[in-house]
């Protein structure tokens, strides 16, 4: 009897664990892991995506074609461009605004609410709104530029301005999200630290540069991480506004994949693009977590717990 109890207890524990985990495992393997594996499988076939499984094995031909494709190489370059612009312009803007709204300025609750509002709108709504605002013929933006005597721009219709226009829309929609992260990070910094620096005679800028900024490190690194992942998967905005045009000048990896997978029925080739996206995300995430965020994870989560 005495020897039986622990074992039956253990068995019951095991069945409990299994039963509780089962739904999550089924859903995750069926709809997250299996599709990714299927993408790997399909990427080495020439396949039009019709019913059944692919049969025309082509080895790595899809990948060699991909690496020689100017559109795809352009996708990589444009992704990099968006990342650079985000990190160099959008995130500093978010950080600056967050620091301003951390001070006691009049109406800061309102500003915070307003700046974050675009984040809750879908990219579809944002896209359509800005198609009208940045319309070359009767858009609001050209009207306002007219006040300053600036010639109207073609925005999304001109290959040389289309990426800038996309970036403006991304900034409009997402800078408030990063601002919210920075505000939360800033509130996690104990007041004693900045006060001590002030008592020691540090001026506003010096306090920011030598106390606040270093302590915001974890938040900044997360915010950069999310920007990069966002740029890698950018789809909705571009698909609705330009479809990747004019002449591929705003195409992203996700748009190229979608074009080949759902419009041209080259599913094998499109799967190869998915696989490359998977690896770029994976390598980036591993690298970033290993070398950039390594020291952060523990400290950051304790900051968070304090805030609750």
């Amino acid at each position, binding site marked *: 009897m005495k020897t039986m109890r622990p074992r039956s207890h253990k068995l019951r*524990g*095991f069945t409990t664990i299994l039963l*509780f*985990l089962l*739904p*999550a495992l089924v859903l*995750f393997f069926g*709809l*997250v892991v*299996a*599709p990714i*594996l*299927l993408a790997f499988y*399909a990427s080495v076939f020439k396949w039009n995506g019709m019913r059944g499984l692919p049969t025309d094995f082509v080895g790595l031909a899809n990948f060699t074609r991909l690496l020689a494709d100017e559109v795809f190489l352009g996708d990589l370059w444009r992704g990099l461009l968006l990342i650079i612009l985000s990190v160099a312009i959008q995130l500093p803007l978010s950080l*600056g*605004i967050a620091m301003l709204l951390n001070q006691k*300025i009049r109406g800061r609750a309102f*500003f915070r609410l*307003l*700046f974050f*509002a*675009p984040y809750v*709108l*879908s990219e*579809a709504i944002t896209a*359509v*709104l800005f198609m*009208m*605002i940045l319309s070359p013929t*009767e858009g*609001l933006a050209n*009207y*306002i530029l007219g006040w300053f005597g600036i010639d109207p721009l073609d925005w999304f219709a001109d290959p040389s301005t289309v990426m800038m226009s996309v970036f403006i829309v991304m900034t*409009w929609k997402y800078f*408030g*999200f990063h601002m919210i*992260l920075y505000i*939360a990070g800033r509130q996690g910094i104990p007041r004693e630290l900045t006060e001590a620096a*002030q008592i020691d005679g540090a*001026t*506003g800028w010096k306090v920011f540069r030598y106390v606040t900024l270093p302590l915001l490190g974890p938040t900044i690194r*997360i915010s950069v991480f999310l920007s990069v*992942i966002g740029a890698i998967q950018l*789809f*909705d905005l571009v698909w*609705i506004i330009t479809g990747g045009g004019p002449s591929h000048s705003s195409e992203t*990896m*996700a748009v190229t*994949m*979608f074009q080949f*997978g*759902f419009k041209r029925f080259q*599913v094998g080739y499109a799967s190869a693009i*998915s696989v490359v*996206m*998977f690896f770029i*995300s*994976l390598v980036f*995430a591993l690298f970033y977590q290993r070398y950039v965020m390594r020291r952060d994870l523990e400290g950051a989560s304790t900051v*968070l717990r304090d805030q609750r």
Partner: protein
Amino acid sequence: MSANRHKHSPTSGGPLRSLSLHAVVVITALFVGIPLLYGVLGGFKTTRQLSSNPLGLPDPWVPENYTSVLGSASFWRMLWNSTYIAVATTLVVVAVSALAAYVFARFAFRGREALFTMFAAGLMFPFAVAILPLFVLLRMFGLLDNPLGVILPQAAFGMPMTIIILRGFFRAIPGEIEEAAILDGCTPFGFFWRILLPMAKPAVATVSVLAVVNSWNQFMLPLVVFSDDSLFTIPLGVQQFQGQYATDISRVMAYIVVAMLPALGFYAVAERQLVSGLTAGAVKG
């Protein structure tokens, strides 16, 4: 706050500096606010008015664009589809993730951390990576043109974030409470259902709000799953309407403004949960 103490320093305090700081905030507010205002007012104009007078108040005010959206059956149907899909997604993802998070937080077994890491790794993989094979699988299961074809994948992709947040919260609940419940004859499920979940209400609210917003704004998945437009959600409807009436700008504007309202209303109500969810997710992510 340091304005008085550091009058001598040119870089801190001073009315000039505070004025320029305000200017930066106000300019940013214009950058964010004008597009929204332009949309709202634009909906009250005719398209001809809009091109001659883009920024001013409508003259005369034309409510027809708005009333025609509010009077169209297809708009209400899309609103219903979006709502139904968002609620169902949230129920599935929260239920499934809460069970899993409970196990990850309160049971010790071999392979637990590896399994948890696997779920957490799902966070790194955007929908875009899996959409094509997902489409193939959904077609195999016969889930195309079926709300489940959107609900289940959304729930699956929402699980990593939900499990991470809930596990953190479940862990913080003291072990003594569980021991007391077990001594009183509570089963593991009884403890989960009657004690853990009610105690974790704020965390459940947070993850639910995240799930609703993500589902509400999802575009790519419904785009490939639904070809029958009676199943369309709002983002698809917006795109379709824009395509149909591209030249009638003020009408499109009224449409997207009305389409924004549910999301903005939800934001007004659930702002706190949304912010805490996003910051929690980001910091843990």
